[in-house]
């Protein structure tokens, strides 16, 4: 225990003096890094804009309240599209990431080179935001729901694949060996030994990702990939902030609802 002698009295400290100095040094370097970064950000900022920020903020909020409810009816179809983008995108992502996860898991991968390939796909997909995928896909397949669905799917592959292969690596080997002992072929081992063990985790992960995808699909319209984001973008470009507020309220309600649904399903499965 780190006890110091101060005026011949034992005084307790949380750390040894050398360790304490190391912690302080770490804090010092961290603060220096932060100040350095903040300095660069500040140099690139036009501070004149900031002087009237509170006026801008007040006028923005003033124009958003009250929301323009008259467009609510015309927003329901885009909202349905948004939910479809998230759902179909998640389903496509599951179809691709499911086999990928078995290739990526150390205990089920048929070959190290296949494992490296699967891991590369997973990392690339995870690193790139759905919106960037959407920009790309809009230039490739044209604007519309399809681009949004594929963008969501491409982003989901990494997320689902990573969590799923981690679940596969954590399975209990007992049942798998028991199935193998009955003379099962490798595919039967997967189907009866591995699959039942990861099914609850798989369902939970999928629903969790669906919930995230609902949030993400609300903004895909900004780049032309369909859904309620298109209406939001149009309203913002028209500076119709009352309509923007309506879109926000609808998004908020949808996200809260989807979070509730996903929590219920996860609760039921796990």
């Amino acid at each position, binding site marked *: 225990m780190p006890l110091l002698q101060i005026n011949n009295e034992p005084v307790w400290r949380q750390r040894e003096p050398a360790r304490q100095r190391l912690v302080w040094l770490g804090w010092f370097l961290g603060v220096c890094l932060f100040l350095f970064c903040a300095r660069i950000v500040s140099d690139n900022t036009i501070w004149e804009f900031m002087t009237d920020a509170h006026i801008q903020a007040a006028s923005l909020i003033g124009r958003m309240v009250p929301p323009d409810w008259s467009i609510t009816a015309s927003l329901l179809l885009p909202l349905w599209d948004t939910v479809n983008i998230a759902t179909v995108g998640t389903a496509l992502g599951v179809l691709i990431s499911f086999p990928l996860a078995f290739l990526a898991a150390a205990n089920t991968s048929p070959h190290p080179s296949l494992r490296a390939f699967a891991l590369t796909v997973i990392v690339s997909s995870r690193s*790139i935001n759905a919106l960037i995928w959407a*920009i790309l896909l809009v230039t490739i397949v044209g604007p519309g729901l399809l681009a949004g669905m594929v963008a969501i799917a491409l982003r989901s592959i990494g997320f689902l694949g990573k969590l799923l292969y981690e679940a596969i690596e954590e399975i209990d080997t007992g049942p798998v060996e028991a199935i193998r002992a009955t003379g099962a072929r490798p595919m039967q081992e997967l189907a009866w030994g591995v699959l039942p063990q990861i099914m609850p985790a798989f369902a939970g992960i999928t629903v969790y990702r669906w919930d995230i995808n609902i949030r993400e699909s609300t903004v895909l319209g900004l780049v032309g990939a369909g859904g309620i984001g298109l209406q939001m973008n149009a309203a913002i470009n028209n500076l119709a902030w009352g309509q923007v507020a309506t879109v926000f309220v609808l998004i908020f309600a949808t996200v809260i609802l989807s979070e509730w649904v996903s929590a219920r399903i996860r609760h039921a499965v796990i």
Partner: protein
Amino acid sequence: MSSLADNRLQAAREGNWRPRPLVERAWLRWALNAGALVYLVLVWFSVDVNWARVAQGMDRGLAFLASFLTPDFVSRGGEIATGLAESLTMTVTATVIGILLAIPVGLGAARNISPMPVYWVCRAVIAISRTFQEIIIAILFVTMFGFGPLAGVLTLAFATIGFIAKLLAEDIEDTRKEPLEAIRATGASWWQWIHYAVQPQIMPRFIGLSLYRLDINFRESAVIGIVGAGGIGATLNTSINRYDYNTSAAVLLLIIGIVLASEYVSGRVRRWVA
């Protein structure tokens, strides 16, 4: 339910063993399947795909994939370097500010250490911050504070508050009660209580979460540039819109590389603190 189990057992004795279905009740199983089918049909009619356009775009898709073999870091090197430096500095600044603001919110949103009114206020802050995508917040902040990295920093900091505070609050709610009571029994003040009873229990996971958020903020900083909030997103968006796929590939490869590196480092740090 027991009759269903009996039926399965009976069938197994006759040599027709079947695995246990995921949904036990047959009618519910069929209803779910039929519902999924109806949904797919409905979606199929709501998606209006112009297949001629898709076929046309396929060449472009292949060109994009091919460009990953010939990424061009040089011809737009200046823009890429500035954008990347701005993204990285924005990430660090926003993560630090966001975490500093998230700690009080997280403490307030933990049911076991905060009074009810504070709890509800903090939970409301978390809900609002988590619902809206970074890009929506960025649009609002760009309107308020003008173009540039400051709007980006504020956006990422705002998003960080919801993320960190929610997970921090859950961690605090999961802490063991005994140390909390022991420190309180020594007559510690509120600060000492938080410092010696709560903080040691949550610190390893908190460091892990902060590093994870740093990672997320970097990835997001590549996006919010699209709406003018600074960072590499603007460069990326311009290159894609100009069909300059070699530059886009270079930017994407850099993002993937940095995310990989930061994931590796944060994995090491997490193992070291845990």
